[in-house]
């Protein structure tokens, strides 16, 4: 049992040395699963997630087939040893919920009408968890879809933000929360956009914030999203230049 630290930010410095709006090192690599039609690994600091895309392919069972478009399915899961306490294999309630919001976010950009009656399967797997795994996974999934050559209106890009207490107990908004901030902080907000559509496509919150705090954190996250988006684009370009 870990002990709750006295503060999560002090003199504007977070436990890992970052400033409020600063994000962890981001590393994006395509083609990590050669068998997949598209794949991508995203590292947000120690959080490491891989996404694989198979499809468009035939859909079973038949009663799920959509006659006018492709079904985009997502399955988020964690390796049993990606977390401190071993996770039992197979998706639980948390994983089912996250799979749902990831699939919905991706559907906002995939041109599903191009592939009626088929399925596009997106597998998001957490290799190592240090908070923000769903957002890292969504970023990876979006690049993996592009890597698979699926026509898209644009990428989906996200960065979590949160509220953490400082040495005086006051709440401070920060971008890209990591584990201790997620665990002990006052709010954790998963947030992703479609830059092309200028839309919020994923938004989930645990915590307690005022409207002002929410907007302040969101603005920080938007800057981190801009950077992350460029990294996504770079990774895709690197692949095509490498080809």
């Amino acid at each position, binding site marked *: 049992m870990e002990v709750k630290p006295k503060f999560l930010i002090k003199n504007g410095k977070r436990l890992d040395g970052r400033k409020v709006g600063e994000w962890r090192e981001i590393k994006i690599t395509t083609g990590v699963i050669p068998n997949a039609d598209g794949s991508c690994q995203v590292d947000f600091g120690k959080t490491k997630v891989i996404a694989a895309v198979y499809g468009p392919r035939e859909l079973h069972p038949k009663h799920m087939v959509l006659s006018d478009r492709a079904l985009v399915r997502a399955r988020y899961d964690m390796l049993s040893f990606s977390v401190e306490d071993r996770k039992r294999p197979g998706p639980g309630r948390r994983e*089912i919920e996250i799979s749902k919001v990831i699939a*919905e976010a991706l559907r906002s950009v995939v041109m599903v009408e191009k592939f009626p009656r088929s399925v596009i399967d997106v597998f998001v797997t957490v290799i190592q968890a240090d908070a923000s795994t769903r957002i890292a996974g969504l970023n990876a999934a979006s690049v993996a879809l592009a890597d698979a050559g699926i026509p898209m209106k644009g990428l989906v890009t996200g960065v979590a933000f949160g509220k953490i207490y400082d040495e005086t107990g006051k709440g401070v908004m920060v971008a890209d929360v990591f584990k201790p901030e997620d665990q002990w902080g006052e709010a954790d907000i998963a947030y992703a956009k479609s830059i092309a559509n200028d839309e*919020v496509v994923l*938004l989930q919150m645990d915590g307690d914030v005022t409207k002002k705090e929410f907007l302040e954190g969101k603005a920080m996250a938007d800057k981190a999203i801009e950077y992350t988006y460029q990294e996504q684009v770079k990774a895709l370009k690197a692949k095509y230049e490498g080809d």
Partner: protein
Amino acid sequence: MIDKVTLKLMNDSFKKGVRLDGRKLDEFRDITVETGVISKAEGSAMVSLGNSKVLVGVKVNAGEPYSDSPDSGVLMTGAELTAYSHDSFETGPPSPAAIEIARVVDRAIREAKIIDVSKLVIKSGEKVWLVFVDIYTINADGNIFDAATLGAMAALATAKLPIFKDGEIIRENLKDSLPVDGKVVSSTFVKVGESVLVDPTMQEESALDARLTIGIKDGNIVSLQKGGNHGFNDQEVEDMIDRSIVHSKKLLKALK
């Protein structure tokens, strides 16, 4: 999914600021909350939100705490979109939609610190109270999120705490209430075409492009959950937050 004719009717109507059931875009349906409806439950509430009826019950059992929080009781929230409450729902393990509802209600209660779990310890590290909040749809006509939150809140606020004595749980003639403090309510909005509506019916939900549920306590945001295959723009998000704060006052009144 909704047919194209109805969808056009809806969108035409929304542009005039009116919904097919006569409501304004930013108007909730009638709400009634009846508590104490199930005498076998420690707490219970039947919520009607227009034609949606949701029954929520609270049972309190003694059990082991989680190993990483030996001095806390445990809250567990489940939801079922029952096969008898709508033609399109099926029997079997909870669907992703039901799991999402349960988890969103759970987070709102948990993050708003409605229950003081530190007061639910029978013996540190060994025995604590487990609070089960179970949500059932009786008749499903949209916006189960907000009805479920109201029901959970009302059932918890009126729930009794059993007594643990000589290894047994006593559930009769209880006086103490569950250690519940404060109230959280939620407002759910959907976007259909260009319009944003609060408290959608099942028909409106079948046409939705995007959905946002906002939990409010004391004017603060305590939970957010977006759904749907499309997005909201920044202005829409800001507007919904404002409106959810306004709606929260009326919703709190329904809780009495």
